């Protein structure tokens, strides 16, 4: 099976939706692919059903009316030639031939290993939040959250709103860095308001800067956590632990297409075009910046793809959100202590059960893959690769197809997709 379109958008979060809306409204034939069953990405997960968030509702309604086609449950597994993507969808697959592409693959959490992080009940901070949004029963459950930045408060607010008992919020950033960051938020009125609303609901939750998880303990699932709080150790009994340290962009599809990356983000020009012609990148791929950055860059890329003029106001907004992204990156940078929590027995690669001790003598990711099978399992190094980069400074290698576990049939180019390389502009 195959699909053809003027513009393919990979990812239906705010960035992808904004790009799709702008391009489809200007008359392009737009196809949007997303692994989830509904549009909205992680940040607007389940908003398509609940409609509680006004901004999300506005964009989802606009998207539904835009004329863009949406393919849920669709995962890009390979890019066999310029202008073609191979996509797996449920138990079938198809090829997409596109004129331009907007990559809006968003971000994932940065997990860092500590003793007990593989116990059931230990999740990411946003990981626990999305499961609660998706219906995980949290009423009356005791929750500890450890991580960094605004996501910690967002997760706490969701858990609190669903009746969960947030026992403690551990922010890894130092007090100076954290309050410096908070003081900068006055430049971003929307975020300031959001922060204030969240804090009001969570006023009774003990929170500390300079705090992080040392270990999770329990028989068969997490029962308690040990925290380091400003140099003291504290132990708390809990039902769930959310522990992750900020976000990192999902670069796999961009790397698969050959886009250049630098300092963990996709390199783009002022038209948001990557070093691969006609392939654009938006949102978190440019460096973590949240919903505002995703929307503004998505709109820009959609307009560029449709060869529409760019409103000056949109350019101005982009410069403003970039300043916020830079501050966030400084605040969320994991502190050195977090790199020393894992013991020799602690698993780094959860798929292949590779303990820290197995990496002795490895100098880079390639050696760790070859000698210890680090990152060779089902998730293809998405979790441990990010951790290894933070722990050892090992950078990711090129992504090879398939970039996710895929059926052999999904990797075959359908015969009706011409393999000539003629790509008209």
């Amino acid at each position, binding site marked *: 099976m195959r699909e053809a379109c003027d513009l393919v958008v990979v990812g239906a979060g705010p960035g992808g939706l904004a790009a799709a809306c702008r391009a489809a409204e200007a008359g392009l034939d737009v196809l949007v692919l997303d692994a989830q069953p509904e549009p909205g990405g992680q940040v607007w997960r389940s908003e398509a059903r609940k409609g509680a968030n006004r901004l999300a509702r506005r964009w989802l309604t606009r998207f539904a009316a835009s004329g863009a086609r949406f393919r849920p449950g669709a995962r890009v597994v390979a890019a066999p030639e310029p202008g073609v993507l191979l996509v797996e969808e449920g138990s079938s697959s198809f090829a997409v031939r596109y004129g331009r592409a907007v990559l809006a693959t968003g971000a994932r959490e940065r997990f860092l290993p500590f003793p007990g992080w593989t116990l059931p009940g230990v999740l990411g901070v946003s990981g626990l939040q999305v499961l609660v949004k*998706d219906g995980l*029963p949290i009423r009356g459950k005791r929750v500890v959250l450890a991580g960094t930045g605004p996501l910690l408060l967002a997760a706490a607010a969701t858990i609190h709103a669903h009746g969960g008992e947030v026992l403690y919020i551990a922010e890894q950033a130092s007090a100076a860095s954290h309050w410096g960051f908070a003081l900068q938020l006055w430049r971003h009125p929307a975020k300031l308001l959001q922060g204030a609303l969240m804090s009001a609901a969570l006023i009774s939750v003990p929170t500390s800067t300079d705090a992080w998880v040392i270990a999770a303990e329990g028989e068969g699932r997490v029962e308690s956590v040990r925290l380091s709080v400003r140099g003291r150790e504290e132990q708390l009994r809990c039902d769930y632990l959310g522990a992750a340290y900020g976000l990192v962009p999902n670069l796999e599809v961009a790397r698969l297409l050959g886009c250049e990356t630098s300092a963990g983000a996709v390199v783009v020009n002022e038209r948001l075009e990557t070093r691969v012609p006609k392939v654009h990148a938006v949102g978190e791929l440019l460096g973590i910046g949240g919903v505002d950055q995703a929307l503004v860059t998505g709109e820009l890329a959609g307009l560029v793809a449709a060869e529409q003029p760019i409103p000056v106001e949109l350019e101005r907004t982009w410069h403003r959100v970039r300043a916020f992204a830079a501050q966030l990156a400084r605040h969320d940078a994991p502190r050195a202590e977090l790199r020393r929590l894992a013991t020799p027995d602690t698993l780094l690669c959860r798929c292949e059960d590779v303990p820290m001790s197995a990496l002795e003598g490895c100098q880079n990711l390639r050696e760790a893959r070859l000698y210890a099978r680090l990152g060779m399992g089902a998730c293809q190094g998405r979790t441990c690769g990010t951790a290894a980069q933070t722990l050892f400074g090992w950078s990711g290698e090129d992504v090879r197809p398939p970039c996710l576990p895929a059926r052999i049939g999904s990797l075959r180019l359908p015969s009706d997709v011409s393999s000539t390389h003629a790509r008209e502009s």
Partner: protein
Amino acid sequence: MREPASKATTRVTLRINGRAVTVPAGTSVAAALAMTDSFVSRADLSGRPRGPLCGMGVCFECRATIDGVPEVLMCLTPCREDQEVVTDA
């Protein structure tokens, strides 16, 4: 795309490892797993239990056989009536 209309009262019943679980429509299979006795999605190579981690289709800890299709991620799959979920645990 589904309408954002209220479907909160609609409930579906699925089976997780043979056990019937009734949840509100729209609940993900990974979230429904927490309504069984354990929040265990698989066993690691040494037989130790694992549960969902990322909730977003990144970590593959929550893979299961759903309606006969292996390696499906529970966190990206909405619960449906009569769904048959078999974990690796």
